[in-house]
């Protein structure tokens, strides 16, 4: 039975591998040749995340074929910090406090949107409709309808829409997911993930401007964000969907404000179970008062478990150790008719390790979480004038199911996806 299941996985993986290859973001060489013209970029939303993305663009010079021509934020201090950052790199992008002025006045090929969640939809849709390609931070939008509207604008305009799920661009994750799809961990029986922090998630509000509370701490208020669901869980739900190559059929969730009773409106802890059509469950939880467990995704198969954040694979039957060197040498010598002393107990001594088996590293060589690669690929896609559609769908369905999780928490019911949000 097990062999049959593995054969099945391998057969299906052949088709899957072809798909992954076609969809692979590694098209840089030919992309760079596609156009000599520099890609003109703008960053809309220069808060901490936006400036981090700017820093990647400016400090690491991820690609010689782009220039940062404009930045925009409607919060003065954030915009000032962005200008100061740009000056450190001896560039002087145009500044705007209104994104509509930016896209009407500055000729840009692509924008990176890192505003609060509730602002993603209308900014993205306006950009796409003007033929400007968009890399929008996850999650896509604050509401289901806005999420669908963003996707529709992408389809109707033909402009690229990439959602900021950086793990999709991490070589470490790409390698792990290819191996999962090729059957290395066997049949996926369950997935679980968590993101545990010990922080109230608050940003400082200037003493003399308490009216800025909701603007600065937008992640804590339902009008602007679904909190843990859209800001943290969505990353890991995307990974689960990627592993399954499909999307959930239902979600049951619960959450509460259990610890930080400080006026926030979004849960400070939550748990959810996503079900897939083959019976696989994805079990998720997040909390904000203890970080001992940290952040992790477990993809659990009948042959092995991959822990993706820690880059670790734990095989159910670990690969047997190589023959102990001393005995191996002794046997080799006997076969060659030699009488030689075999080393034992020294540095060549391979002690037994199975009891303390801690798994194996999945991939070497990935620096960072994939955000840098995400920007590189976005620039490449702009030059190619196309991007992998499945990546956009990953962002879309991840956002949809993050928001459906919120509905489950609010209603206490098991939630399925309404037909009008299915995009095939």
């Amino acid at each position, binding site marked *: 039975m097990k062999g049959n299941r593995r054969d099945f996985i391998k057969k299906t993986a052949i088709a899957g591998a072809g798909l992954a290859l076609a969809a692979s973001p590694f098209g840089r060489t030919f992309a760079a040749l596609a156009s000599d013209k520099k890609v003109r970029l703008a960053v809309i939303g220069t808060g901490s995340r936006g400036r981090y993305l700017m820093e990647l663009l400016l400090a690491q010079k991820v690609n010689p074929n782009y220039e940062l021509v404009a930045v925009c934020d409607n919060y003065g201090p954030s915009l000032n910090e962005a200008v100061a950052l740009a000056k450190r790199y001896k560039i002087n992008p145009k500044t705007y406090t209104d994104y509509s002025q930016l896209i009407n006045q500055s000729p840009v090929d692509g924008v990176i949107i890192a505003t609060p969640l509730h602002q993603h939809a209308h900014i993205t849709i306006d950009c796409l409709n003007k033929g400007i390609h968009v890399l929008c931070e996850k999650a896509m939008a604050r509401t289901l309808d806005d999420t669908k509207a963003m996707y529709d604008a992408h389809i109707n305009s033909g402009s690229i829409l990439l959602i900021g799920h950086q793990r999709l661009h991490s070589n470490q994750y790409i390698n792990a997911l290819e191996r999962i799809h090729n059957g290395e961990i066997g049949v996926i029986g369950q997935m679980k993930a968590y993101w545990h922090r010990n922080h109230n998630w608050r940003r400082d509000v200037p003493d003399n401007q308490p009216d800025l509370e909701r603007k600065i701490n937008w992640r804590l208020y339902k009008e602007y964000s679904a909190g843990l669901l859209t800001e943290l869980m969505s990353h890991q739900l995307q990974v689960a969907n990627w592993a399954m190559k499909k999307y959930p059929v239902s979600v049951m969730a619960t959450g509460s404000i259990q610890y930080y009773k400080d006026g926030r409106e979004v849960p400070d802890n939550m748990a959810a179970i996503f079900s897939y059509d083959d019976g696989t469950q994805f079990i998720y939880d997040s909390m904000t008062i203890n970080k001992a467990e940290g952040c992790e995704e477990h993809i659990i198969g009948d042959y092995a478990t991959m822990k993706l954040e820690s880059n670790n694979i734990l095989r159910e039957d670990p690969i047997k150790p190589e023959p*102990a060197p001393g005995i191996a040498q002794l*046997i080799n010598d*006997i076969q060659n008719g030699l009488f030689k002393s075999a080393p*034992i107990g020294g540095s060549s001594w391979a002690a*037994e390790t199975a009891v303390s088996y801690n798994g194996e590293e999945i991939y070497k060589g990935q620096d960072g979480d994939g955000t840098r690669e995400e920007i590189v690929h976005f620039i490449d896609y702009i030059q190619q004038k196309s991007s992998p559609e499945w990546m956009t769908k990953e962002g879309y369905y991840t956002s949809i199911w993050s928001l459906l999780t919120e509905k489950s928490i609010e209603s206490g019911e098991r939630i399925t996806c309404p037909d009008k949000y299915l995009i095939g």
Partner: protein
Amino acid sequence: MNTRMDVVLWGNDYSLHCEVFEEIKKKTIDLERIFSRFDSQAETFYVNQNAFKKELKVSSVLFKVIESCIEFKNLTEGYFDVCYQGRMNEDLTERNDLQLNNNTSGIRFLNDNIKLDFGAIGKGIALAHVRNILKLYGIENALVSFGESSVLTVGRHPFGEYWPFSFQSQNGINEELQLTNDCISISGLHNGMAHIKNPKTGQLCQSKRTVCVVTDDPISAEVLSTALIAAPIEKHSQILENFKVRKVLYNSFSA
């Protein structure tokens, strides 16, 4: 035992050697089913789960080994103790943890934190059984190794008068060992990591010392190599007086 077993048999009777190997393999698996604390089907696993609640009747093999372990605890001044696993700091005392009933082959834990762990003796037990099998089949020359930390030699190498080994120190200095009918056991750091606990303190033994014990009894060799890692060096002479030992090597110097 979660380790690699190497068996070297030489001679002209290939089918006999195959039969002996299969017998050794079977016996080793059987013993694993008694002494493993990780295998949920193993007798020791069951005892660890239930022996505090009530007295359990155990197999004669297990009962005899537990009796031996209690004796070894005395002979090693308490530095070999199969009951150290799970013991809490407040229980690090000299008191008896086990109650044995000779009439019923029964065992009961006197402390609910106690777990039996035969990790420091299991390979020696297996090698003792292997030696009996070799004798039973009339094998005159053989070498059996568990992960190169526990080795049994019988007779000689096909091209020499003994089985030649060199014990490597951390400094790369070798000590030649000419083994015939011997048992050796090596304990120390595993890949640079401590794994043996001092039963009297509950602390991992972080010393970089490696100990190699050569005896004619594989069980004693296992017990001693572990105890000499756990015990302070000044206790070693006293402990060694209680055993019939051919040689003890410590890294680059011998005692």
